């Protein structure tokens, strides 16, 4: 288009013809280079979700790469738009029609080829990053496509319930807590499930997000890389207090974690909590917990949580 318009305004005799295409390209290259350097050196280190875990590092890298790819495209559009406004705007007394537009094979091929390369590159990069070990979405799901190697994997069960997450540590006697505490530099397998409705476990700074579905063991992996605090939120609308369903976790040193976990296990064992909890399982079905059934049958109870309400109970008044 630029060439068509340039051709419509031929240079006067002795005057060198302006190469608008070259001008635009030079402006674009300089601006795009500046933008990408700013993104890489200034923005990238501060992009969410940070670098607290291996997953977070990958997610941050992915966002940076996408920003690096998108910035030149966006800047090309802005550059062309700005150049057009300055050079080819309507001027007083110029009421002629613009020059007719004709096809330009080179521009069309460049446009189609360039966009195809960008889209295919984003597809390949995104797919690889999604499934690569410790990548942005590594191994997540009820049937993980990838599992961390090594034998020191820490198992943590995340149990959603309106409106609180609790965390169970099967390697510490099935101890359960309301606060998520993890050791640094040790791979963690989150087994996410729910006791009632659908929740979603989102440890923001750890870059871990997994749906908590009743009856489903949803698995997600990560390795905390730095000590510090992080936020856990429910990211699935789950009832009136969904917005209040959050808590704060901690990543601590391995030695401190051992002390914390063993102390909690010992306390809960002494108080009889471990004995009161059901055997560790990947999912729980409250409708078939035998202890609940015995209680109800033994006492002739007709009202209880969930399944045990008889059909004759009143519905919404």
């Amino acid at each position, binding site marked *: 288009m630029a060439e068509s318009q340039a051709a419509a305004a031929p240079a006067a005799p002795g005057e060198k013809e302006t190469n608008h295409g070259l001008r635009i390209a030079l402006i674009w290259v300089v601006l795009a280079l500046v933008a990408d350097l700013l993104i890489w050196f200034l923005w990238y280190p501060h992009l969410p979700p940070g670098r607290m875990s291996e997953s977070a590092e990958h997610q941050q890298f992915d966002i940076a790469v996408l920003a690096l790819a998108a910035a030149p495209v966006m800047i090309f559009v802005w550059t062309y738009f700005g150049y057009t406004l300055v050079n080819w705007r309507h001027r007083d007394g110029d009421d002629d029609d613009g020059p007719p537009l004709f096809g330009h094979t080179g521009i069309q091929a460049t446009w189609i080829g360039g966009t195809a390369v960008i889209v295919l590159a984003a597809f390949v990069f995104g797919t690889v990053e999604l499934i690569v070990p410790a990548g942005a979405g590594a191994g997540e799901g009820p049937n993980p496509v990838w599992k961390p190697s090594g034998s020191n994997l820490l198992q943590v069960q995340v149990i959603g319930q309106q409106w*609180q997450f609790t965390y169970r540590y099967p390697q510490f006697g099935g101890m359960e807590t309301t606060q998520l505490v993890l050791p640094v530099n040790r791979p963690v397998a989150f087994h996410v499930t729910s006791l009632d409705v659908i929740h979603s476990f989102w440890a923001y700074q750890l870059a871990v997000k997994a749906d908590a579905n009743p009856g489903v063991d949803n698995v997600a992996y990560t390795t905390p890389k730095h000590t510090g605090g992080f936020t856990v939120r429910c990211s699935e609308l789950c*009832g009136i207090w969904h917005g209040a369903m959050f808590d704060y976790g901690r990543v601590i040193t391995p030695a401190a974690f051992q002390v914390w976990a063993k102390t909690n296990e010992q306390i809960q064992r002494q108080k009889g909590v471990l004995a*009161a*909890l059901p055997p560790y399982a990947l999912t729980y079905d409250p409708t078939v917990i035998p*202890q609940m059934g015995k209680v109800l049958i*033994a006492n002739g*109870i007709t*009202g209880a*949580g969930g399944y045990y309400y008889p059909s004759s109970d009143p519905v919404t008044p």
Partner: protein
Amino acid sequence: MSLPARIVTLLVAFAAVVAGAVFIVVHYLGSSLEVVNYTSAASGGVVNVVLQEDPQNNSSSKPDWVSYYVQDPKTKAWVHTTLFTVPKNTRVNMTILGYDGCTPARNNFWSLVQGTIGNSMTVQQFKTVGQPVGPAQRASVRNTWSDCSVGHTFAIPSLHLYVPIASPVTALFNKDGCTDSPCTEGPHSMVKFSFMTPKNTGTFRWQCFIPCGGGFLDGNGGPMQTLGYMMGNMEVAA
């Protein structure tokens, strides 16, 4: 019909519609629960708060759901609300009277008393008001699955406060359980525990963790999701 009559009719009809809309907004959307204020009842950094949980609510025209009540510190009257105000940085001596029957917790982890001073509570059973069944007993766990002994829980998650509330002795409850709320007689438990309010003011939501919404999907609807029943707010004031 003459023109003036038609205009008058139109205006009257319009006014009726507007009045109806205003009534709906004021009566339903504008209605609010009473907030029981305990700040003036605090003394020496301590305040005593008394709640009761009942198997039903027949004290108002609202749904007949299992419900908490809050005692007014001045009049000692029971108020059908779950909103109360306490001062900041104050020791709350909480007393909860459990009139509702037992319900096993879905997650038996809630059997553990957490966040109270000493991480424990005291539980005493009553045949009716003023007639205890045995002495008060201190406990840090009340297993909701081992026997039929817990009706609901009182929890303020943001303060890491979780307390299982004992249900009345089952045999007594099945025979003489309270059917008229707010309950002033009948078998009940008395659970006592203490905790400190935060040093900062704010709103702290509290709830029951036992799905007790009878007739709703998995027991999670109705009273579990409605202010004034099995969830509420503790306002911490200056």
